[in-house]
């Protein structure tokens, strides 16, 4: 069973941070807090799908001199310490020039999958083919604008799991989930051939519990990124992550 499948055999708790933004032990703090999938962001100068929190994280990371090689080094370092699934989150431009080489290196470093946020499946045939050959999951994103037919296509095109970005706009913490979240997740699940993880704006324990009642996984990003921006210690991040990931009901 792949590491991703293992995470989704339980409820997947997916945690995002940008590589090179603060100490890489932050990732291990999230694992210690119960994250069973790490989403590791590759910084990009023009992250149009992201809100301010992740934009600033990517700016900090680039200022620290984070290169693609450095990101892969961080993946290797984390892989040496844990067996949770690792997904690389990226924009297309930093990897497009050496796509095949990059994917091989990512696999070798210990990544299990890749999510290219600005590569819709119309442009992604080559990526899918390479990922299949190399043995990486290729995570597709479904959005509130995606029709049922498109959700089905996305879940056929993608592999590993389907990421449902549950609101319009960009990433960033929000206080509330959309009102119709349960029915929307059920709708996505109905048309998806893959397990469904839900993210975008998830930033407290109530939201996590409400999502995990229906979805197969839950993604938290900007909330953790904001903690890193505040220079919390690893153990503080671990404590916060434990609280936010705490699941009230018996896991499925």
């Amino acid at each position, binding site marked *: 069973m792949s590491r991703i499948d293992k995470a989704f055999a339980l409820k997947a708790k997916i945690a995002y941070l940008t590589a090179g933004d603060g100490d890489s032990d932050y990732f291990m703090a999230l694992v210690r807090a119960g994250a069973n999938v790490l989403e590791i962001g590759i910084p990009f100068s*023009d992250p149009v799908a992201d809100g301010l929190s992740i934009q600033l994280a990517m700016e900090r990371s680039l200022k620290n001199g984070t290169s*693609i090689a450095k990101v892969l080094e961080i993946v290797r370092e984390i892989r040496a310490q844990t067996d949770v699934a690792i997904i690389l989150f990226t924009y297309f431009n930093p990897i497009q020039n050496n796509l095949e080489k990059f994917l091989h290196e990512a696999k070798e470093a210990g990544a299990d999958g890749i999510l290219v946020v600005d590569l819709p499946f119309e442009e992604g045939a080559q990526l899918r083919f390479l990922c299949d050959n190399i043995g990486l999951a290729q995570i597709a994103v479904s959005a509130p*604008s995606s*029709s049922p037919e498109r959700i089905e296509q996305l879940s056929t095109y993608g592999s590993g799991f389907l990421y449902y970005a549950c609101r319009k706009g960009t990433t960033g913490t929000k206080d509330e989930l959309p009102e119709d979240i349960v029915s929307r997740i059920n709708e996505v699940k109905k048309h998806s051939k893959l397990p469904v993880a839900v993210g975008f704006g998830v930033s407290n324990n109530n939201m996590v519990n409400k999502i995990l009642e229906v979805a197969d996984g839950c993604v938290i990003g900007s909330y953790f990124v904001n903690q890193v921006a505040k220079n919390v210690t690893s153990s503080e991040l671990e404590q916060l992550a434990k609280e936010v990931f705490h699941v009230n009901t018996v896991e499925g």
Partner: protein
Amino acid sequence: MLIKICGLTNPTTAKQAAINGADYVGLLFSNVSPRQVSIDNAVAIADATRCGGAEVVGIFVDEEFDEMLEIIKRLNIQVVQLHRDKVRSYCTKLDPKLQIIYVADDKPLPTNLDPKRDFLLFENMVPFKTQFRYFIAGALDITNVQEKINTYHPDGVDLSSGVESSLGVKDIKKVTDFIRHIRPERYGRFGGRYVPELLIPPLFELEKAYATIAKTDIFKQELNSILKNYTGRPTALTEVKNFANSIGGKVRVFLKREDLLHTGAHKINNSLGQCLLAKKMGKTRIIGETGAGQHGVATATACAMFGLECVIYMGQVDIERQAPNVTKMRLLGAKVVSVTSGSATLKDAVNEALRDWAESYESSHYCLGSALGPHPFPKMVADFQSVIGNEAKKQFFDTVGANPYAVIACVGGGSNSIGIFGAYLDDLDVALIGVEAGGTGRGLGNNAARFSEGTPGVLHGSRSYLLQTKDGQIVDTYSISAGLDYAAVGPQHANLFEIGRVKYDMATDKEALNAFRILMRTEGIIPALESSHALGYLISHIDDFPDGSSVLVNLSGRGDKDLPSLISSGVLECLV
């Protein structure tokens, strides 16, 4: 959808096919084919194919094994296509690194074929269910290919006779038309739709509305009437004799006067077109980005007239250097949002506009200001700006009795230039020259010269030439002109660059300012700093133009907007 074109017989056509977007170019060596090529010719075709960015396929029909190996070696072939039983039987003996395109029939497949690497090819037969990627082939042409794709869902299409003018002779126009038909979102290897999933359905909605609403006679008549009665089209074509004399007097210089248009630049052609379309789509709010502020003012103007809400994103650096335009936008009722992220210029304004649209696409239209961004924007903006070239071409011909020797325009994102070049693309005897911002000179970061210092990449929804680091991070650009200060260029320009139809060069700040001064003093016309780059190029390269030739320059906008920043930086004092 992969595109393979087979039976190429000369290097020029092979290269054109490759840079226009063919993924594979196939060569035939067997004398059973009218498209047979000699080995020496094949070497030249293979080089040209690779130079254009496509993969060479060796197509084998009835060759002896040694003969085939010799060809593979001579041409350094990585992909072979195997047709008849004789050559298909070599399959097991081939170097396992070779990628095989195996022509399938009803016999079992050889066991050494690898679905992770190889393709099947179904020629005139219905594809069977398979884990292999596959091409379909068999008299495909522009009239039947879409139906075949919809029926058989192949990974690629294989073309030969469908793009020939006569037996064995490929017609490059048919090749490019075919590729455009399959990939309307692309210009050769450039363009596309690289946006988050969220924006894909809104882009499809826009594409559909553009293809239906904007192509109707009623829409065109309404827009033309506005362009005539509201913005003052057609704009004048002015011969500037004093200017020409002051730079040596050897060429005649004609300016297409987009500076005389309402709001002072060509941008209004596009803003009115898009806002009219948006209104007919039922959108109530318009988002725009702006660099020099000309597109912002044009969009704010169109919104005021059509009764639409307007939000313009503008980099803080540009807000400071284009103050009059900011005031104008506010007076016109637009909300101007200052963007402070990144380099706080046009690139960052586009980022913010895209983020807004991702939130608001249901009620809002993103009125992109240049021939940039994801499909259908580059096409739509070029269409709305084509009025410049269509008018100028006729005016010039009526005045001079011939086409110009050369057409020169500045290239930021590339909308004024594609607007005027478009009318001349098929007139191969007219030289087309695009002038980028040379800033302070050579060196990444000192300019916005994408074709001199950039490499292909993906930014703001399309693949094009970008100023970027080796790791794909976009670098800061520099130009005195806000409208040219941008790290990417429209995808059609990238294609025109690669096929060699347009020559791209740069003019520095200094050259632009010199032209700015000369045109004011000799003709009483204040050009925008953007347009001054086109004139600056002409002045510096005047020796390249034959004596007595006529040159058409697109004066894309007027320069009033630039005066405050020139005053505050002290530059104006040096000019007066």
